């Protein structure tokens, strides 16, 4: 089992979500986060251009069985990359080993609980 954590642009959330649902990956957790990356965005504030320190992003977390890692990653890659070729700020995907997964309702463990 793996935990896939993707940090993506806010504006791409709808696209990524729709693509994941289409790929039959329907159990996801989404949160709003902020962070530093290579991207610098300019915002207007009272007629001044400012560059905020922390840029708002969306974090998607998906726990998957090993057989589904590739399709999940490819789906996110395709949907979160902007303008076809990608831009600075499109985000990152982290894959970490997942030790255990427990469904609270039934108490079942492991791959079937995902």
């Amino acid at each position: 089992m793996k935990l896939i954590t993707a940090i993506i642009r806010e504006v791409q959330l709808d696209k990524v979500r729709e693509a994941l649902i289409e790929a039959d990956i329907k159990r996801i957790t989404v949160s709003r986060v902020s962070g530093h990356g290579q991207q610098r965005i300019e915002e207007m504030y009272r007629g001044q251009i400012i560059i905020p320190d922390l840029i708002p992003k969306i974090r998607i977390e998906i726990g998957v069985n090993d057989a589904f890692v590739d399709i999940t990653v490819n789906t996110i890659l395709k949907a979160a990359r902007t303008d076809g070729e990608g831009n600075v700020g499109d985000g990152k995907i982290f894959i970490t080993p997942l030790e255990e997964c427990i469904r609270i309702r039934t108490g079942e463990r492991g791959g079937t609980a995902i």
Partner: protein
Amino acid sequence: MKIFGKRSLLILFLLLIGSSGLFAADNTHIDSGATAWMLTSTALVLLMIPGLAMFYGGLVRSKNVLGTIMHSFVAMGIISVLWVVVGYSMSFGKNVLGGWFGWDSNYFFLKGIDTNIMDAGIPEYVFTMFQGKFAIITPALIAGAFAERVNFKAYCFFIAIWSLLVYNPLCHWVWASDGFLFHLGAKGAIDFAGGTVVHISAGVSGLVAALFLGARRGYPYQVIRPNNMVITMLGAGLLWVGWFGFNAGSSVSSGLSTAQALTATQVAAASGALFWILIESFHQGKATALGFASGILAGLVAVTPAAGVVQPYGAMILGILASTICYMGIQLKNKLGYDDSLDAFGIHGIGGIVGALLLTFLIRPSWMHDAAASAVGGKWTVWNQFGVQALAVTIAIVYAAVMTFLIIFILNKFIKFKSTENDEMAGLDRSYHGERGYGMLNPS
């Protein structure tokens, strides 16, 4: 613009300003009581626009909250300016082009009314500004029908053109002393504070626009939840408060008819709200805050044309009927599947039609008596008046629908009215304003 350069525009502007002040005050005295109330009413009706911004703003997703609020706010800018330049003249001038709208060169830039006192004892400036607020809120109401998916620039052009070609003529027909609906039947079509002019026209136009644009991305399969019901409820409250200016101010006096309108307004809003949550409790099992707010609006919309002619029991019945029919209308919308996002037609269109038609059966006897006295042959029945109301409503519906379709159809050739898919996904706030409504939700 090439022929008519900036400099000549400036000169024209200065000439127009320079020629004001030709008309001295007539001998009418200012009625300070009426003037004070009309000034208050003017402020109250203006308060409805931020109220509407909050009401609509809370109902959309957080990525669209500022864009939706701006739909109301930008109307305060665009329509106020247009109203002063030509709007008042088109609405309350003398018939031109066969009565299509009015025109009076004294009203152009309001240059001839600097010292005018009206027969009602109020300065004409006060009446102008009071009516101007109605002109602002009407196009802002339409925005609820196509929320979350409209290009800001196209919207700005749309409300400007709509105000000139739909609102001003309708306002002229119903409220100007030489408007043709003002003289229909024995005592005219009854539209006390704008059921036809404001709510039916905005609701129907909203429906046409929503059908033309098509649904939002993901509608109706994706759940689209309000981002902040708290500001929606506060907005509904402000609308209720502001409506006292809207209805009671429409008596253009400070006296008995003001009190009658004010009472009818309160009763209809309360009974509408109460009845909506009752229906909801039986139908869905829970009384929702949004239901209560919708009931307030349905009641207020329905009593708007009627506030001058119904007694409290009549207002109560109107509130109840408006809530019932609007509730059924929204159920029907869900079945039909068109995307009137914030129910601009469902509440304002349907509620306005209910009010304008059914008020006929609830008119106070003294009004009918006066109508009979001024009718040809001395007889005037409820059904005579119903015919007049139905005709006025039909004219408003057809005119608003046809003109709105034409305006959007032609405008759409120049600026795409609907947001692009990317703009819609990113949200109106980011795409058109470069801002975020709730920056503080994230550490930033």
